[in-house]
């Protein structure tokens, strides 16, 4: 017999975890939707953001919530630079180069991080790191709640940006039909760099947020990347609204499987979901928001 309080607790835990998955996936799927490129280095950039947050905190005492916009701006700029100097060149090359360029980036970033900061596990302990709120018998971890709220706000702001601004419209137009967008006078390369910058900016926010309750190592982004792939496919690759809901669903599935089946198979369960979706509905639950015309 499942206790209602444990069920509710598992649901809340899954939802809080899912918020982070959503944020990581939204960036991944945005880049894919606009540029048709899978960013294997997404988790590595998330890890870099964790380190940025860590060092700002340790060296200069900058609170993670203060360094959140800094992380976004730094990674947005870095994303634009990386897109222009590396990704764009690969996009003009053969298919294999497009596939491997971000994988190469992942290896370079992870190994550079290892060389620079070693493999020591680091954590950030802020005043609320181990703080817990109680709603009756249900407990809610403060850093996870803050991360969840921030992740949802960031996703909503992205939605507003893409739907209510000219630049957002241009990004969506590019994702929908590259050639038509070009003919309409949209600078495709500029849109690409904005999209890549935004993708990294979003994952940097995720990295900053988890740094207050997760551990930081050069490979800390990898498990999130795996989950983000599953989420992105679940929501429909390229569909950022799908990624938002997909993240929450995977978070809840993982939490429920771990709590009521076995913690050892929690990843197995969501990977099974991943494969079932790939086989039965490859376009994802919500399909692609940006119907590609050409």
């Amino acid at each position, binding site marked *: 017999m499942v206790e209602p309080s444990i069920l509710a607790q598992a649901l809340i835990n899954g939802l809080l975890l899912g918020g982070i998955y959503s944020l990581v996936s939204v960036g991944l799927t945005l880049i894919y939707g606009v540029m048709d490129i899978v960013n294997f280095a997404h988790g590595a950039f998330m890890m870099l953001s964790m380190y940025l947050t860590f060092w700002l905190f340790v060296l200069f005492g900058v609170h993670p919530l203060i360094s959140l916009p800094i992380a976004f701006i730094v990674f947005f700029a870095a994303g634009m630079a990386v897109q222009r100097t590396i990704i764009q060149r690969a996009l003009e090359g053969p298919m294999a180069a497009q596939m491997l360029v971000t994988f190469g980036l992942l290896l370079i970033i992870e190994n550079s991080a290892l060389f620079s900061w070693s493999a020591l596990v680091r954590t950030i302990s802020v005043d609320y790191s*181990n703080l817990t709120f109680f709603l009756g018998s249900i407990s809610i971890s403060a850093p996870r709640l803050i991360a969840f709220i921030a992740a949802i706000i960031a996703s909503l702001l992205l939605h507003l940006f893409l739907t209510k601004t000219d630049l957002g419209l241009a990004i969506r137009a590019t994702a929908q039909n590259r050639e038509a967008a070009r003919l309409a006078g949209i600078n495709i390369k500029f849109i690409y760099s904005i999209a890549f910058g935004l993708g990294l900016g979003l994952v940097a926010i995720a990295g900053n947020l988890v740094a207050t309750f997760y551990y930081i190592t050069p490979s800390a982004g990898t498990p999130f990347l795996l989950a983000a792939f599953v989420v992105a496919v679940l929501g429909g690759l390229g569909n950022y609204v799908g990624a938002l809901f997909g993240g929450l669903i995977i978070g809840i599935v993982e939490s429920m499987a771990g709590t009521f089946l076995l*913690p050892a198979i929690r990843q197995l369960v969501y990977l099974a979901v991943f494969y079932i979706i790939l086989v039965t509905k490859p376009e994802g639950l919500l399909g692609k928001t940006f119907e590609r015309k050409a």
Partner: protein
Amino acid sequence: MTLNVNKGIYGEKAGVSKAALAIILVVIIVAAGVGIFFTLGPGAGPEQPKVVKIGVLQALTGGAARYGQVVRDVINFIVEEEGYDTIKSMNAKIELVWADTQGKPEIARAEAERLITQEKVHVLFGTVLSSTTLTAAEVAERYGIPFVNEASSSPKLTRLDRKWFFRVGPHDELFIKDMFVFLKEAQQETGTTVKTMVIVFVNDLFGSTARDAIVKFNDDPEIGGYEVLDIIAYPPDITDASDIALRLKSLDPDIIFMASHVSDAILIQRAMIANNVKPRVQMVVDAGHTSPEFIETIGKDANYIISREVFSLDLNKPKSQEVAKKFRERYGYDLDGVGARAYDAFHTLLAALEKAASTDPEKIREALANIYIPPEQLINAWDGVQFIPHGEFDGGQNKLAKGIIVQFFDDRYYLVWPKELAVRPYVFPAPSS
């Protein structure tokens, strides 16, 4: 006088050639003689190499890279800070050849093969993780290369009848038996009773062998007999541990027995705090729970956790104190159980090489098999280093290695058991508030 061969129009020239030939022959013979003298001369024969190559297998990347880093720091400390860079009996410099196992058994196997066949190492050292030691030691066995292990704790490693494998640190059964003995003693002394238990372990060779040992000793009516409510396995790279914490909360056992690495230990403990799980007795199989990172992150919330250990800064041994102090000065963090085992194991290897006075694998093996290192030369609280002969049960295991029990109070783990070494009394069970 010239030889009268091919005499003709070139006759005179042929005569000169013979003389030149003779001179060249003499020169070649003299040069060869000098060469042979220097090649086979004292201190340079095949038995007297200029370098001893030690292949060090460690996880330098991946989730377990933190252990590799600690071992690397310890070995560099011994070679650079303590100056053990030469094997005097061979007048040979030590050359360390590092290989990254990435914490993966298949890579450890391939790297061991590379170190032996391509790098031509004379001996192997490593790998902390039991799963990677298992596969790497299998390669060493096949090629007949001695393998010295510092801190892999799976008992299986010395139960495979591998004659080239030597483990300096204690294994899980030695550790875990001590923990059950402690549990029994603590109940008798405090007049409390604990009945139920949940085992939580990381699903790799380290975790699963720890679980096996816990189950085995719990089945021993003398020291065990607790009701096991659940056995929870979890994968090494988890992003969230709330589900584990929730299961613990709903089962509410008296004892939580855990075997975790660093990152997962932090994640689970934080999830336990977030989900308001307050164990009466939390027993941990050192590793992650005793790492400096865990202590720094969890702080006072780790209070009353009881762990097996091999090393403690409390050990009242001048050598331990001195090494720990110098190590901290150089690397900025405290020597832990993994580092301390690596320290004693590497010194054991150096002593064996010194004794073998040869890079011949069989001679190194023999030196290891017959070595005895007295306790005062070690930094761990062991009775020395002496291996069980191969062919016997647990052959290759250091029979003088043993564990201690520590408990966390406020800022660090304190030695609480055995009593003769304790620096403060243990608290059992943990206070409820």
